[in-house]
């Protein structure tokens, strides 16, 4: 049976249960406020938001795969596109765009112009250094780590594989904010960098 064609983000978003975004925005704001009160250090809050996002991303990816009918054997480039167009849309109701690919195809930027997390939010001066949307970077990182892609050519060329050729790896990434609308930039820009890694080896050696 042929696999179902991937559905567009709009179609999926229309089919999931949705709630008033205000509830989401205000809940997130209250969480950040409470974390600042409890943790006091802005860096600690950033870390905690990232960790929470990671946990969420790891769980959301199941729903993402189930509803979007995306096949697993794609490359990093296609994955980034699908996350931006389908993933963001089906959960947040907004699409992101992918730009600034580097020559090797292992680093790109996700650009978000419209972000429900930051509706009506203004950062006071006391929160310098706070990445308000850091939960998003965690979600992207967590989700990517659960997805498996074909090993990028460039990693193969670097001879990181010792055992028999392994075609699929999970994506460990480093995700950082390049631009932040709450700090005065015009968009949110999240840089996603695929980290070089040794792929998982099979527990037994095949005949060479």
């Amino acid at each position, binding site marked *: 049976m042929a696999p179902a064609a991937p559905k567009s983000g709009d179609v999926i*978003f229309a089919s*999931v*249960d*949705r*709630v*008033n*975004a*205000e*509830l*989401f925005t*205000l*809940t*997130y*704001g*209250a*969480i950040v*406020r*409470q974390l600042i009160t*409890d943790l006091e250090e802005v860096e600690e809050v950033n870390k*905690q938001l990232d*960790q*929470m996002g990671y*946990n*969420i991303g790891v*769980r*959301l990816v199941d*729903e993402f795969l189930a509803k979007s009918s995306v096949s697993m054997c794609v490359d990093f480039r296609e994955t980034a596109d699908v996350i931006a167009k389908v993933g963001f849309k*089906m*959960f*947040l*109701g907004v699409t992101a765009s992918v730009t600034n690919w580097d020559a090797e195809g292992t680093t790109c930027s996700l650009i978000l112009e419209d972000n*429900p997390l930051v*509706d009506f939010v203004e950062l006071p001066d006391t929160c310098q250094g706070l990445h308000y949307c850091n939960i998003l970077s965690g979600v992207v990182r967590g989700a990517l780590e659960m997805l498996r892609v074909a090993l990028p050519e460039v990693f193969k060329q670097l001879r990181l594989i010792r055992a028999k050729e392994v075609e699929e790896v999970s994506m460990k990434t480093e995700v950082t904010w390049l631009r932040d609308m709450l700090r005065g930039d015009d968009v949110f820009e999240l840089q996603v960098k695929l980290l070089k890694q040794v792929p998982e080896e099979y527990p037994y050696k095949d005949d060479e």
Partner: protein
Amino acid sequence: MVREVSESCVESLLAEIVLSYCSGFYANKPELAARRIEAIGFQVGHQLSERYTMDRPRFTDNLDAIKFICKDFWSELFKKQIDNLKTNHRGTFVLQDNRFRWLAHMSVDPSVQASGNIQDPSAMAENKSAQATGMHLYFPCGIIRGALSNLGIECAVSADISNLPASLCLAFIILMPLLWLSQNLFSSISLQNADYAALLVQSIIF
């Protein structure tokens, strides 16, 4: 057109708050964790209530405010109204939702412990899962308390977890004894009723 997000987003956030505070920051202090979760809910309820009552005149009495919570407020949040409202006309209200949305998708982590002493070890397993869910429910309790606080009503809100996890029916209990007291104290001429006197004593202790 009201902006929307998927319900998974809200539920994920809620699950993460409970996890962070119960298993993370206040791992062995469920009362503190509960207080923080409730405080987050309070903030949300307060702000939402402000937005939803912007164009209305002030509510004339408590019952109207509670009805607002049951109808308009609940509809905005959960796309349905409260199914059943009961009151003893002495400051206690019970709001019953026969199918509380957040319960339907709540994944209960048995390692998340709620407050309360478990006296009977045989009931522990079932109790634990109900109590873990109880932690999640501090958030909607906080929302209700925050919403009422914005309407000028100070109260205590708790959720009745005796039916969980079997059913999705959830009752929120709102207690406003002080308010009732202040409204009735000066209108009563003498303390004839023993119940009234007992309630008076209880409220002062509260």
